[in-house]
């Protein structure tokens, strides 16, 4: 017995060679630990002009990227100070995806995403004040303190929110697209999720239906190399973007560390969807710098891997680009950063000073129509 099971390995093994066992025979296959994480496709736009971006847009983009970064760095500090509990999934490193996408879309195009949603909220209608207050569980939060970190949303700005069940919002994204087609309003829906969500049955069902019904929806995997502690190659077979083949669906793979590529490609895809009402399946490769949530020891990756990505950090890259190409002066950059720094500090003050929801709020927002609470009398007594 003891000898036998050395030979059998089910899930592919990880990066730490001391734990790996020998991955031979059936269990071998793609073994390079960096394969999925580092293997970025080439950028598709060498500069902002090629991407079709104006200087003014670049400034806004820098402001947005910087805001996302700074907001989350501060959020992390607040979490560590015990200002709020629960999960805190940071988007840091992935900001080129949210920023590039939101510029590629019309303002009334729809966005829905998973729980790693702060960046998305901040580029699509959640103010820093509302975001920080949400983290603090305050009544002034974007979701009135009822959702917390995983449930940022600004529905009036067509950001339908973050969702915490992995894969659960994928069919909902399809449904938003369905309603847009039904209402013939020309809006394009984008539905973002992690590489981990690729393994959920909901994806398969939704892709089949959306392709069959020609729903104007872009399904985007933000492949950041890991699903919690599991490298993409350890949880999902094949190259992710190739899943589209099974459905005969249009697909693309995009370098998600490169803002210009994200913008350019997503714009072209959104244009195609608007024109044809045909769905796309897109893999954007990116990387998260922080742990999965706050309690992640991160033993599943090496410092070297992380460092490699930080070399092409979208924030640093854009700042460098702006300065090198004299699209912004050193001072203008500093001023902008200082402004945002202050904005985020103000957001913390705002959150601190905001009231917690009133007790009655516990029973509010459950129903759009007449509320009903079973056995409420018992609770009140």
């Amino acid at each position, binding site marked *: 017995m003891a000898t036998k099971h050395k030979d059998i390995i089910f899930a592919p093994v990880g990066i730490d060679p001391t734990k790996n066992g020998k991955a031979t025979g059936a269990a071998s296959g793609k073994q390079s630990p960096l394969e999925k994480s580092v293997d970025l496709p080439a950028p598709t736009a060498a500069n902002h002009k090629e991407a079709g971006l104006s200087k003014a847009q670049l400034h806004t983009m820098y402001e947005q990227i910087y805001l996302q970064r700074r907001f989350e760095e501060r959020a992390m500090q607040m979490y560590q100070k015990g200002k709020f509990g629960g999960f805190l999934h940071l988007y840091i490193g992935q900001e080129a995806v949210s920023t590039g996408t939101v510029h590629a879309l019309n303002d009334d195009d729809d966005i829905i995403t998973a729980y790693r949603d702060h960046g998305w909220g901040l580029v699509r209608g959640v103010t820093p004040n509302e975001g920080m207050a949400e983290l603090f569980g305050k009544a002034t939060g974007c*979701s009135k303190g*009822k959702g917390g970190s995983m449930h940022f949303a600004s529905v009036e700005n067509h950001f339908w929110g973050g969702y915490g069940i992995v894969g659960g919002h994928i069919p*909902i994204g399809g449904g*938003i697209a369905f309603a847009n087609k039904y209402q013939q309003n020309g809006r394009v829906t984008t539905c973002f999720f992690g590489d981990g969500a690729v393994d959920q049955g909901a994806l398969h*069902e939704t892709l089949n*239906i959306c392709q069959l019904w020609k729903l104007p929806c872009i399904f985007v995997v933000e492949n950041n190399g890991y699903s919690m502690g599991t490298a993409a190659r350890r949880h999902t077979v094949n190259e992710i973007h190739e899943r589209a083949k099974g459905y005969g669906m249009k697909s693309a793979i995009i370098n998600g560390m490169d803002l210009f590529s994200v913008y350019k490609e997503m714009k072209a895809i959104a244009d195609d969807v608007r024109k044809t009402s045909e769905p796309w399946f897109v893999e954007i490769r990116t990387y998260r710098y922080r742990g999965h949530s706050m309690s992640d020891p991160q033993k599943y990756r090496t410092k070297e891997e992380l460092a490699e990505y930080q070399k092409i950090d979208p924030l640093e890259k854009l700042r460098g680009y702006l300065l090198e190409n004299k699209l912004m002066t050193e001072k203008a950059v500093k001023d902008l950063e200082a402004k945002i720094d202050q904005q985020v500090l103000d957001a913390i003050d705002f959150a601190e000073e905001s009231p917690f929801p009133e007790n009655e709020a516990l029973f509010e*927002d*459950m129903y*759009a129509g007449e509320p009903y609470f079973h056995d409420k009398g018992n609770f009140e007594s």
Partner: protein
Amino acid sequence: MATLQFREAILAGIDEEMARDERVFIMGEEVAEYNGAYKVTEGLLEKYGFKRVIDTPISELGFAGIGVGAAMNGLRPIVEFMTFNFAVLAADQIINHASKARYMLGGQLSCPVVFRGPNASAGQLGATHSVAYDSMYAHFPGLTVIYPSEPDDAKGLIKSAIRSEDPVLFMESEQMYGMKGEVSDAEDYIIPIGKAKVKRQGDDVTVVATGKMVHVVKQAAVELAKNGVEVELIDPMTIKPLDMETILTSVKKTNRCVVVDEAHPFGGVAAEVGFLIQREAFDYLDAPVQRVTLPDVNAPFSKKLFDLWFPDAKQVVEAVNAVTYRG
């Protein structure tokens, strides 16, 4: 009053709402070209076209979620499950999304979706096709659960369900689809969600039942009346909101109660109603509340075992005898 089958009454309600509101559409397996596995959607395709009457793949989770998303984004989807047994595959969309999204986002959106289809047993279909899911969903905050027993109720309530601003599960019975009944032909006939009906008046014992069980109780009531026991039959019609007021009023009059429920015993509607009665009408009770339910066993196929398994009038009579200290 027109005489309609149960299925026709539901269809009429859906039809009226589709005519009234362009946002209403229906989707599900075989609802369009096949005219519905149980013909509840017969003729809708012809009338409303492929845009609003939509055949889906067998992807319960996927199309339920598309319903949820479409509801959030301004439409009024009716999602048909071929039975609620298959909706178990879509439970994540119902339990984790439809009922929670609004609250989690602090009221930024709403989700006016109707999930409907046959619930509970439909005869000899075996264990995976025979379960009553009304109490399971009633457990979760934010879900309205309707389970009518007669065509008239079905019509008035499906219209309310479609107009509800919040997610509703509307449960039917495959075995009752062909049952006929008088249906009001009042224009725009609406029955409000959350109000029980007294289906039979009586002074001796209150019996609470929904769906198919209402008819089992009616049978039992005839038997019991022969022996001088008058049943007051209450049909809550909506499992949630549950109209305890009507039930308690009756129990305070009769001082005895039996709950009949086509679910397994543990934590079913009968447990909930029984618990609340003892708590709210303790001093009025002359006997403990009894329940008649399925046994804690999966549905068998064999006709003989099935008949044993399924709650019947005899069991109701026995339970009534128990609470009235007879027999």
